């Protein structure tokens, strides 16, 4: 039985959270972790592929629009089609929608500003493997940092996402109420993270890797550790 996942973290030119994810999986979780240059094409060694946050190719055209043409993306699609884990965080979520591995799009925040803050999220579809380690928790707190995190999809797609229970995280208040006031960026249905129909590809705007280190949680600021369980959930699922 394995106690670790093999993690591959894709490095696009302009990725800037790649090393942060690697710190969590490699240093904190002690999982074998490899940074993968975006021209890599063989992903057969990995259980989990992470598309990290950042500004791939500067995000100059449209977030993620150029990254989806990187050679590694064909392999990521195969990896996903084989039912293996793919996690896109922030810019990674944007790339997954551009690559059509997830539906919808991420557009400019409602107030047009970049937002760096900590937000409450209501956990939805807790039967999904990504949320197994959260136990009884229904509300968690994670950091966000994005300028283009407003989730958009056409009504039919939205309805399908809801029916299939593909929404995993929704912006909410501390009590878990999904309100307009608790929506930082104008996302439809307060959506912060979704998975594909099969459930093995997750995209989320919040940064779980920034809420995983016990050293930081001992601070006058309101750091949380709510991100670590997301990674641990996958191990539970893999081990069965």
């Amino acid at each position: 039985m394995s106690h670790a996942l093999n993690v591959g973290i894709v490095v696009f030119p302009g990725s800037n959270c790649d090393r942060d994810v690697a710190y969590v999986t490699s240093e904190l979780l002690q999982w074998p972790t490899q940074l993968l240059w975006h021209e890599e094409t063989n992903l057969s060694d990995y259980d989990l592929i992470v598309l990290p946050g950042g500004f791939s190719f500067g995000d100059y055209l449209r977030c993620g629009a150029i990254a989806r043409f990187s050679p590694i993306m064909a392999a990521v699609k195969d990896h996903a089609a084989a039912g293996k884990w793919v996690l896109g965080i922030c810019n990674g979520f944007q790339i997954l929608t551009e690559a059509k591995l997830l539906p919808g799009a991420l557009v400019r925040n409602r107030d047009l500003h970049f937002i760096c803050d900590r937000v409450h999220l209501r956990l939805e579809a807790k039967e999904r493997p990504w949320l197994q380690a959260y136990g009884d928790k229904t509300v968690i707190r994670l950091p966000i940092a994005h300028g283009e995190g407003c989730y958009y999809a056409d009504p039919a797609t939205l309805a399908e996402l809801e029916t299939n229970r593909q929404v995993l995280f929704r912006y909410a208040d501390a009590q878990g109420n999904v309100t307009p006031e608790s929506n930082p960026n104008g996302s439809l249905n307060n959506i912060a993270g979704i998975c594909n129909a099969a459930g093995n590809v997750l995209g989320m705007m919040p940064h779980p890797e920034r809420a995983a280190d016990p050293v930081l949680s001992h601070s006058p600021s309101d750091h949380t550790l709510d991100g670590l369980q997301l990674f641990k959930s996958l191990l539970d699922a893999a081990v069965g």
Partner: protein
Amino acid sequence: MSQTPLVTEAEIAAEGLKPQEYTEIVRRLGRHPNRAELGMFGVMWSEHCCYKNSRPLLKQFPTQGPQVLVGPGENAGVVDLGDGLRLAFKIESHNHPSAIEPFQGAATGVGGILRDIFTMGARPIALLNALRFGDLKEAKTQQLVKGVVAGIAHYGNCVGVPTVGGEVYFDPCYAGNPLVNVMALGLMETPEIVKSGASGIGNPVLYVGSTTGRDGMGGASFASTELTDESMSDRPAVQVGDPFMEKCLIEACLEAFQTGAVVAAQDMGAAGLTCSTSEMAAKGGVGIELDLDKVPVREQGMVPYEFLLSESQERMLFVAVQGREAELIEIFHRWGLQAVVVGRVIAEPLVRVLYRGEVAAEVPARALAEDTPLYERQCPSEPPAYVQQARQWSVDQLALPARSPSEILLTLLATPSIASKAWVYRQYDHEVQNNTLVFPGDADAAVIRLRGTSKGIAATVDCPSRYVYLDPYEGGKAAVVEAARNLSCVGAEPLAVTDNLNFGSPETPVGYWQLAHACGGLAEACRALHTPVTGGNVSLYNETIDSNGQPQPIYPTPVVGMVGLIPDVQRVVGQGWRSPGDAIYLLGLPLTTPLSDPRLSLGGSEYLAQIHGLVAGRPPQIDLDLEQRVQAVCRYGIQQGWIASAHDLSEGGLAVALAESCLSGQRGATIQLPAGTYPRWDVLLFAEGGARILVSVPPTEQTVWEAYVQAQLPNAWTRLGVVNGEYTELCIDTCDNSPLIKVTMEELALAWRSPLPKYLD
């Protein structure tokens, strides 16, 4: 050899060179310079590049100390953190570009200071900024704030370096000439600190990064003159930044330095190719031959003058080990960057520029970069008239306000300089890299933990510029001790300083008097606190010439950037109260201190400026001995784990500091003044100075804490009151139990949170 001038007097003046400087150039060269050479002298002899007015004053700064690994003169200072960790840090201004084009001006300011850090072989780990604008009620100020903040966010967020702290002030004196100072910190990744002196005759000179265009022509000269109505049409002098290119450049450079194939490196900032070649050559005591035909370009038809003065961003110059250039070029190409051998190190100590097979310029490197003009000015012996007039003011002339102390407190909290800056720092990614222990606004200094150790780094930027205006010497001291106090309030031992001297013209007696006295104060305080200056930036001519031809200088603003070391990062405290029942103490001069004590003052205070509309009096005089003792007690108390929160008193004095600790901790406080004779209530509540810090201490630690503080500061501590629960009030009662201030948390929060969104959304 040309015996007659090749350039016109107008062209000489256009380079910012004075006639006597031109004569000196001719003497040095033994001939008249051509247009390209003139341009090279113009930028290199600008104040921005050669400090010709400020160098004699900068000499008095202490620059040595056991912790200093690299002092002034390199791209950044480097200090030793122990455990093999070395911190590079530096501050730089981008004031004039930001005045003309706030978004790109501020963005490229971030890019420039980051290059200073990673050029040394250090990975940038944090950014801070010190911003100053005019009256926030003015539409023009609002546009500048929005542009500057968006520019900093655009560049810093994309490049993946967290913006963890800073300060933002508003005063009408900055209306036409805002200040944008950016400080960067980095951790060394290579065993050897990469220096800029070229060596090894025959070694190839490698150009890496982005292409060269006509953008930013002569930016250094532009930064060294007053802003006029015509400056707005000078936009080509403002560069355009590409943070994606910079991110790739960081990774490629750090990888390249690991190979050991890089002999020296210098970023191309102000004065581009001219500055990098001449400084690398002069520092190494060698020469550099540069072939412009090999320089990658982004536009056609450029002439040598344009190549040499371009300030296109995201470019660097390396000297490589001969024969190993190919492996370096491979790294840069992998990151999608230019990498071309454009020249070589030569024995003759000159910069020789080739263009289409001919020598386009040939200048002794030292004449450009080291042996530059120096103006020793006479400092007026008497303070200028405005200072003498300001000193006539005394508190006896001031009537107590008709409004209640509570109303005055709420008014002060709602002034933009004191109000919450969440609108600003929410736009900066302050968490990327996953090392930010304290978020902006939560503590008096930014704190970054150092992975693999129990240690942390604290950093702050500070300058009480109204004090400096009214008393440059004491104001200079105040900037240093306030920065150190910020660090002490998170438990950090102050290590070293990088300073950004933002002043008006040194060519006026008043301007030079301000500069000279402020430098004196900075130097004295840095010596006393054992925080040497490892580098910085001088930005003079921060004046706007109005339409009547009258210069309007800013307040003299020597921003002090200071870094400190935290031995145990788990002991760091914030400025907010933590738990109900914790006792609140004031360290520093007690509240019974009479106004005759010059260490405490309403002169130059925020209260006097905002409530009475007066900029007058003498600011508090700095007691360096008391400051050090108070700060040491605060640090020790934090490191022992006795202290739950610490916050220094600055603008707005005691009442504002108490309110800020309430706001940050989201709980109220009850203050009961001990028996004693107190000054009038506005002095008691709003006077500034006195080396003061507010701390809160849990009941379990109070006995040991009080014994310690009594031994260390027998006459400089006061027990003030107690922390309340959430959703309560801030109450300050006099010793005979009459309420002086009584405000709810909701009132405090509304006053303090509203101003910036109100004017900027």
